[in-house]
Structure formats: structure tokens, C-alpha cells
């Protein structure tokens, strides 16, 4: 009880003298605000990305690729394998008895960004005839569906938003062909940043090999194991079978991990800087108050009250910085759209979301930085040799 009263009294005194120490106090606030702003916005990037990826994919859809391929780009599925996949058990069929699947292949085409004209690689995906049944999430928003055999493409909404030359009526080029944009579509997932056309037409245009992957619909999510066993028990096939969400997760694990790592790496380096800033500020705060501290100690106040009061001040300033930093990140980045420039994967477009959780993480970091920075100055205040300090005044 008396200890709390001591701590409360000393802390209140410190805080009341804060206005006289505005300039030094700002160092800690601004430094930490910067760290937290950067940390939360980069983390917002990786969580935005993970969220986009998690939304993609359905449990009853399966992607089949060559054994050991990490992505569609490096995969190939021969027409012989195709026939076995088509006849595999548990594949859902339409009213006419045809399996609902899409054998796909992709090319990278070069487009220009609207904002700075920089070039980016974008995926042109060749899809099967039943793609709309397989992927009911594809909705045309303007124009019409491409027709096979006549070099037409449709363009995802975020691709239209980001790149020049992909509006309806525009033409895009692959190495051996020119394609006319006839429609735009939305999907709500990462396919929105792609262009789509008929797979057979795309293969015929450059005679480059077979399909790269097959995506198909199962009778039910539970039928997955039956389907997988049927394909993988045949060693001649050498195929990998993944549920669609698993595939998306795996394909993007690398990059979202890199971004998270980057967030914490950059965040940590900046945090170290901010700790020194906080250290400086709090040492200055303690030196300016040496006489008060010595007087209070002489009167009989304990070391604990000194430590806690310095830490409380550091914590308060740091949390102010943390709140400012996360609000900055929120104001400037929340809801922004960002795209990765990963060439091999094509572009992935996603929303930055500076969520309340991220803001809390940022403020917690701020608090930790403040406490670490305040610790040594607090210890100095507690260890102050009272007699010598009173003499020095």
C-alpha cells in the first residue's frame, strides 16, 4: 500500500514535469512511432497476402501436377496422363457425364503498369472448356467469354486496374500470337490478376508442349483420399495431388515468409535504433531530475519507486509513439492494394490490411522498446549515491 503510494507519487511528479522536457521526450516518441509505422505496414503486407491466399481455393477442388513440382510453372502433365486423370474415381461429372476439370497451361506476358510504366510479367492462363463449371467464382463483369480457336482473352479485374493495354478491344502479344481482349472478370482470389484464354488454342499458338496442371472438381471434399490413392498408386504416372487451398498455401509460403521475415528484420534493426533513442531520452530525463531523485531518496523514498517511475515514464512515451505509428500505418496503408513483382509466379495482388491485431502488435513492440530503453536509466536513478548526488548540486 505504502509502496504503491510512493510509486504513484513519484510517477505523478515525473509526469507533471514532462512538459518541461518536451524536446527530449519527443525523441523517444518520434523514434518509436517510425519503427511501429514501418513494422505494422510491412506486417500488414504479409498478412494481407496470407489472407488473399487463404480465400483462394476450395476443399473439393484438386490440382494435379508432375511429381515434385512446386508450382505450375515447373510442372508438365502429358496427354497420356490426362486420360488416366479423366477416368479416375471420384471426379465430379456434369449432366452430360463429362468430368468437370480444366487442363491448364500458362505463359508469361509482359505488360506495363499504369502508374509508372514499369514492365511486369503477368500470367496468361490457358484453361479447359469447362472452366466456368469448375470455377463458378469466375464472373464476367463486362464483355463476353473468350471463344476457342480465335485468339481471344478475358482479363481479371485487378489486372485491368493495374496495367495499361488490357481493356476490352485492346490486343496483347505472346511470342507467336496476338490476342484480343473481349471481356473482364472477377474471382475474388489471386486469379483476378491474370488473363485467361482457351488452353488448346494457347498450346497450338506456340506448339510448346502439353499441359502444366489439371484442376478438377471432386464429388465431395471427403473423396479426396480415394482420388489421390487412385492416381498415386500408379507409379508410372508420377503425379502430385493437392487440394487447391494446400497448393495456394504452398506456392505462396515462401514469399509470405520472406515478407514476414523482412518485417521483423527491418523492424528489429529500427527497434535497436529506437532503444538507443529511448535510452538517451531517459538518461537525459534522469539527469535532469538527479536533484529531485536525491532529495526524495534522502527523505526516505525507496529504490523501487524510482525504478518504476522512470519505467512508467518511458512506457508512457513509448506507447504514445506506438499509437501514433500504428495510426500512421493505418491512415496511409489500410486498404491499399499492393502487388508482388515475383516474375516466375506472375503477379499476386492483394489488399494491405492494418488490422487492430497488427496495431496491438505494434504498440506492444513500442512498449517493449520503451521498457528496454528505460531500464538502465531507471537502474541509474535507483543506484544513485544519495550523499554524493546531494553534494554535486
Amino acid at each position, binding site marked *: 500500500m505504502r509502496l504503491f503510494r*510512493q510509486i504513484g*507519487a513519484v510517477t505523478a511528479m515525473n509526469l507533471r514535469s514532462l512538459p518541461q522536457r518536451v524536446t527530449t521526450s519527443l525523441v523517444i516518441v518520434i523514434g518509436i512511432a517510425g519503427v511501429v509505422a514501418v513494422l505494422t505496414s510491412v506486417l500488414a503486407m504479409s498478412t494481407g497476402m496470407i489472407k488473399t491466399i487463404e480465400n483462394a481455393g476450395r476443399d473439393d477442388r484438386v490440382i494435379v501436377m508432375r511429381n515434385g513440382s512446386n508450382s505450375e510453372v515447373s510442372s508438365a502433365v502429358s496427354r497420356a496422363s490426362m486420360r488416366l486423370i479423366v477416368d479416375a474415381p471420384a471426379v465430379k461429372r456434369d449432366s452430360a457425364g463429362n468430368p468437370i476439370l480444366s487442363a491448364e497451361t500458362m505463359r508469361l506476358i509482359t505488360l506495363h503498369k499504369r502508374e509508372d510504366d514499369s514492365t511486369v510479367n503477368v500470367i496468361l492462363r490457358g484453361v479447359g472448356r469447362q472452366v466456368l463449371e469448375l470455377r463458378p467464382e469466375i464472373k464476367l463483369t463486362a464483355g463476353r467469354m473468350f471463344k476457342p480457336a480465335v485468339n481471344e482473352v478475358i482479363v481479371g479485374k485487378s489486372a485491368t486496374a493495374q496495367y495499361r493495354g488490357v481493356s476490352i478491344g485492346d490486343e496483347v502479344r505472346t511470342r507467336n500470337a496476338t490476342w484480343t481482349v473481349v471481356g473482364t472478370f472477377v474471382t475474388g482470389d489471386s486469379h483476378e490478376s491474370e488473363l485467361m484464354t482457351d488452353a488448346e488454342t494457347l498450346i497450338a499458338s506456340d506448339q510448346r508442349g502439353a499441359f502444366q496442371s489439371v484442376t478438377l472438381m471432386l464429388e465431395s471434399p471427403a473423396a479426396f483420399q480415394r482420388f489421390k490413392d487412385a492416381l498415386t498408386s500408379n507409379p508410372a504416372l508420377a503425379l502430385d495431388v493437392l487440394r487447391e487451398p494446400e497448393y495456394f498455401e504452398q506456392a505462396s509460403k515462401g514469399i509470405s515468409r520472406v515478407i514476414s521475415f523482412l518485417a521483423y528484420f527491418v523492424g528489429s534493426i529500427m527497434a535497436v535504433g529506437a532503444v538507443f533513442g529511448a535510452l538517451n531520452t531517459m538518461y537525459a530525463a534522469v539527469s535532469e531530475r538527479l*536533484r529531485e531523485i536525491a532529495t*526524495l531518496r534522502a*527523505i*526516505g*523514498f525507496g529504490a523501487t519507486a524510482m525504478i518504476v517511475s522512470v519505467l512508467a515514464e518511458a512506457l508512457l512515451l513509448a506507447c504514445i509513439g506506438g499509437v501514433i505509428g500504428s495510426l500512421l500505418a493505418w491512415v496511409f496503408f489500410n486498404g491499399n492494394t499492393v502487388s508482388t513483382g515475383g516474375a516466375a509466379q506472375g503477379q499476386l495482388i492483394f489488399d494491405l490490411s492494418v488490422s487492430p491485431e497488427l496495431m496491438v502488435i505494434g504498440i506492444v513492440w513500442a512498449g517493449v522498446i520503451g521498457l528496454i530503453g528505460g531500464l538502465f536509466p531507471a537502474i541509474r536513478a535507483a543506484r544513485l549515491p*544519495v550523499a554524493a548526488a546531494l553534494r554535486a548540486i
Partner: protein
Amino acid sequence: MTAIVSLRNVKKSYLRGKQTVEVLHGVDLEIQASEFLGLMGPSGSGKTTMLNLIAGLDQPTSGEVVVSDKRIDKLSRGALADWRARHIGFIFQFYNLLPVLTAEANVEVPLLLTNLSRAQRRERVQTVLQLVGLADRAKHKPNELSGGQQQRVAIARAIVADPTLLVCDEPTGDLDRQSAEEIMNLLQALNRTQGKTIVMVTHDPRAAEYASRELHLDKGQLAHDARRVA
């Protein structure tokens, strides 16, 4: 008469660089309850050092320091802080008031270390502010008060928790002559009417006149009983 403070063969050395310098060379001293002791001596003779040992701000290198029948020379730093809160009232040359607090809040500070309720604390603060003649300045900050007034607030703070001993290091060192006289009259009144035991270090012979006993310290040694007033 009972001795309220006794020093027995107290030595104090400081480390200066790699050298140990002895500042007090075996001081023996008894201070009786309700005495007003004036401690004089040239600069550097060890007056502040001795006062700090009596007040439990510092520890002797050897010897015994007994205050109110308790040996304090071996207490830990934490225990000494608690002990000072109960037994010592400090009056400093430069007042050492807390600049952000009003006069009454400054006076209240030592009471935050007691179990008194808020109402009890307020009552005590009013009483001592009246005693030092500053009841009308209770809401003023230190920088709104003259040096003499600040020192009176400091005296109020020193006596508010009713300590065993008042220790003053050059209490008039920063004041003009008139304010110094007011302060000395106040200290003398506290000694005479309230029976406060006071140990005061001073350079000023006029201030020393107010003490009931005067001692001289020279090069770390006491010249005993230079003058004793009835």
C-alpha cells in the same frame, strides 16, 4: 540527559582515484535530546560528511553511529531509507523543493511514506504551514516564492512527519541577512518551544549564535565544547 546521537570513533575515508583519503579521523560525539548543535569549521573539514553519517545518508568506514538507541552504521541502503523516513528531517542549503509541486504538496511528500489518511495528511500539512507562517502560500509553486519563503516550506516539510532529528546543512547559505535571521529564529523557536533536536552545519557565525552548543571541526577532528549555552 539522554544522548540521542552518539558517534564513537567514527572514521570516514573516500576513494579519490586510487588513493584512499581519510576525511574523519575518529570522531567521538554525543548530542542530547532537545539540543541545537551548531557545527562550524573550515571548508573541506568534513562537516557535511559528518552530518550525512548522523542522518543515515552515508556509512562510516569504521566506528559506531547510534541514533535513538539504534546502531545505523551497518544498516543496508534500503533499511536506511526507511529509517530516515521515520527519524530525519532534512533542510538543505538550496531548499531542494520539488518544482512541479505546490508548497502544500511539497510539505506533504514525507507523509506519503506514512500510513496517514489523506485527511490526516492535509491536517498536518496545514498545521506546519501555519507554524512556519506560510498558510496563505499553500497553493504557490516554489518559483513563486522568495528564497526565505522556500526555506520555510522546506522546514515545514522537514518537521511534518515529526522526526527524531532535524539536520540542516548551511540552511542560511543562500539567503540574505534578513531572511537568514527569520530562518534562524524559526529554527530556534522549533528547538525551544517544540523541543526539536537540531544539528546544523554553518559557515555563518551569526547563524551559529542561535545554537545552544557550538562545535568546531578542523581537518576531520572535533574541537570539543567551544561554547555551551544554558
